[in-house]
């Protein structure tokens, strides 16, 4: 079964995480994505660790391998005359362009947003930057941690008696990538009736700031500044040590306090004073000590299982190995075995949701640099092998 966005062609420019993740999602839903890399060195993600076997090889970057499945890859230098010609032909056939160049640093005039939308009125152009295409910070230098800090998310992450704590694994650029895919899909849907494309300006910090559905009204409604996790408290809804790792005991859901106290297994927890939310605030430190005592008798996974069976909603801290081997994810057929010619074979995480009308497949591993030059430039654009050699000599591909 083909993906539900099959027949839609997207060109991806830029690199690193945000634009590639957006384009990966489009590809995972079935779009025909062509990743366009600079001939010299390719996507900078090829130089991002960790690497397979800790070998810093451009085809062994783990972020690159994950972010670029289901795409074809070509090289192109659009600032050369010959490259500009190829670019125009590629754009003629494209429905979507996803790019994450800095606002004032497009590699060729043809890739300016204005120029793209004017020349190709049916094209959807999604541009992802840390701060957006407008505003006083538009040209500021940013990495993931800078974006997380300036979105307001980081302030609320970590402990209140320590510095704010960064979110992990380039999360800001993943969140920007999926938001770009959402807006792109909306524009494609609209194009089915209007026939017209449009440009989309995605700001990474704004995507993350949209998570702040509590901290912002805290200020706008009552002038209060919401902080990080308090150091003191009952321990519920927080990471607490269990025998073999960390768990999150929870009182959420619709079960009575007695069910929670029963599960943890410390008799002193069966105390009317602890049964209400206000009681748990008032006697937080007393409860904390009892929780520590009770949880020390539990292993993470056994507690999580027992919680679920009692319709409680405890969580646990799982590491990458736990997830890779998780019986629930395996039963839901979440992983796909992918064999990459250089990096080798591994189980890759699949699509977040399961769709009744689409079988998720990884039918291509991440491309080698210029792997599909011949397929695209010869078979699709009709260049001869000799012309391809000439383009290579000119540095166009």
């Amino acid at each position, binding site marked *: 079964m083909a993906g*539900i966005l099959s027949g839609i062609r997207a060109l991806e420019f830029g690199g690193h995480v945000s634009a590639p993740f957006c384009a990966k999602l489009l590809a995972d*839903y079935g779009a025909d994505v062509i990743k366009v890399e600079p001939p010299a060195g390719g996507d900078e993600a090829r130089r991002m*660790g960790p690497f397979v076997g800790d070998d810093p090889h451009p085809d062994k970057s783990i972020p690159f391998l*994950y972010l670029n499945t289901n795409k074809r890859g070509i090289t192109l230098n659009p600032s050369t005359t010959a490259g500009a010609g190829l670019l125009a032909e590629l754009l003629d056939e494209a429905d979507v362009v996803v790019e994450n160049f800095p606002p004032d640093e497009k590699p060729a005039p043809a890739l300016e947003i204005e120029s793209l939308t004017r020349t190709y009125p049916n094209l959807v152009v999604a541009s992802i930057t840390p701060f957006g295409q*407008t505003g006083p*910070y538009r040209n*500021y230098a*940013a990495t993931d941690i800078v974006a997380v*800090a*300036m*979105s307001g*998310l*980081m*302030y609320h992450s970590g402990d209140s008696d320590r510095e*704010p704590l960064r979110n992990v*694994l380039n999360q800001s650029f*993943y969140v920007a990538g999926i*938001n*770009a895919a*959402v807006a792109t*899909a*909306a*524009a494609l*849907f609209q194009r*089915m009736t209007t026939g017209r*494309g449009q440009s*989309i300006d*995605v700001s990474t910090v*704004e995507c993350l700031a*949209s998570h*702040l*559905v509590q*901290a*912002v009204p805290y200020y*706008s*409604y009552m002038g209060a*500044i*919401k902080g990080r*996790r*308090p150091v*003191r408290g009952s321990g519920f*809804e927080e*990471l607490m040590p269990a025998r073999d790792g960390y768990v999150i005991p929870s009182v*959420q*859901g619709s079960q009575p306090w007695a069910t929670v106290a029963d599960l943890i297994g410390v008799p002193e927890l069966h105390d009317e004073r602890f049964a209400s939310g206000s009681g748990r605030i008032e006697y937080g430190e007393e409860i904390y000590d009892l929780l520590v005592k009770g949880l020390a008798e539990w292993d993470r996974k056994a507690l*999580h299982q027992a919680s679920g069976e009692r319709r409680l909603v405890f969580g*646990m801290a799982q*590491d*990458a*190995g736990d997830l890779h081997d998780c*019986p*629930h994810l395996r039963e839901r057929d979440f992983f796909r075995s992918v064999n990459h010619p250089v990096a080798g074979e*591994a*189980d*890759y*995480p699949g699509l*977040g*949701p*399961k*769709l009744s009308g689409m079988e998720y497949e990884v039918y291509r591993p991440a491309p080698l640099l210029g792997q599909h030059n011949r397929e695209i430039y010869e078979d699709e654009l009709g260049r001869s092998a000799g012309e391809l050699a000439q383009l290579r000599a000119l540095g166009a591909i």
Partner: protein
Amino acid sequence: MTLPLDGIRVVDLSRVFAMPYCGAYLADLGAEVIKVETHHNQFVDTTRTLNGPYPDNEPGELYWERAGTFHTLNHGKLSVTLDLRSADALDVLRQLVSVSDVVLENFTPRVMRRFGLDYPNLKAVKPDLIMVSNTGYGHSGPWTDFGAMATALEPTHGTGAFTGYLDVDGDGRTSPGTAPNKIANSYTDFLASWTAQLATLASLIHRARTGQGMWIDLAMYQVGTSFMGEGLLDFAFNGRRTRRIGNRHETRSPHGCYPCQGKDQWVVIAVRDDDDWQALCAGLEMPELAGDPRFTDPVERHGNQDELDAIISSWTSARSKYEVMKALQEVGAPAGPVLDGRDLWRDPHFRDRGYFEAVEHPPETELGRQEYVSRGWRMSGNDVRIGKPAPMLGEDNQWVLSGILGLSGTEIAELEAADAVGQRLAGAGTPSAVPLDRQVELGWTVDYDTDYRGRRSP
């Protein structure tokens, strides 16, 4: 002015954060989103009653119409109340689904089957229906019947393996952290919301081409794991299970969060390469650092980052976080203040881009004009914005029941008489808000401004 989802009707049965927010975004895109709720307190969306915050921390008589988090999550929607314990109300809901395009819900699989509202049953009344079923663990697999909350799910799907402070020994030396931490802010809910939006829009494209509907079985645990791809592959290829390095970077330094002047004020600085390092030294006005043999190349800097961080901290501590940002960005070094809710609200960049969008609330709520976070993107061809405030409970009963479904006045009166439809929350007392001074004591609130209204940007 047209919008992408003009003419699309969404039935939103969902509660709390993830799916209600998805519905609000679809409303901004032009869909008619009908929030189906109930006026019975034990089943009402808890963001109406438990989360606040209330204007000036005062719940007021109509407190369920006044919660800031609810209004952030539900803008742009209509509201109809239907108590699904009533067979007649359930029948009305089925009629509504039959004239709608999308259903959003986040009940447990068990509840949806019990009400006969699972996908096979709803597909029978609307064959090309697109339905998102959002649960903690999905509709299959050994954990399918487990309930879940984002705050407990977040480390369960692996964020805690990679989020955590460095450990510091007695001599101040750092090593990878043993304790996991959380991203917090109900992180997983938002991943689920963005994922649901994408799946719904892709399914609308598919339906327009093929006439076929879609059931989207969205497991928040699985969605969260799909954002941990780099970490999972590091295990699959290299056997590495975890990597907690606080605010540092595997290879780049300096890279961290540094104290600034004032209470709980911080700035982050992240050097990518030698050019950034040279720029940083210039910005710090410490040209001698650039030539310091301890810091000449990335490997040296990485090995000596405890010392480097101490030098940087002493410089940042004497300045405000915005001063640091300006001084370093001016020379091209990546740096940015850690913004709190107040900073974000007043920040000139967010304001310049019109990020906060204003709506006028109905007079009964006494909320007046309020501004809310909007979305991370703008479209050149559409004026996508928050079109109206979140609805009052049952505000659109008349339009939905009579206008859309054609129920007679008698039929509506019967539903009301059976207490299946209503507009006033029943079965609850006014919540008491925790005073802000007490919140500061408990650590929920860092500080507060009594003159916050005057501080609001125009």
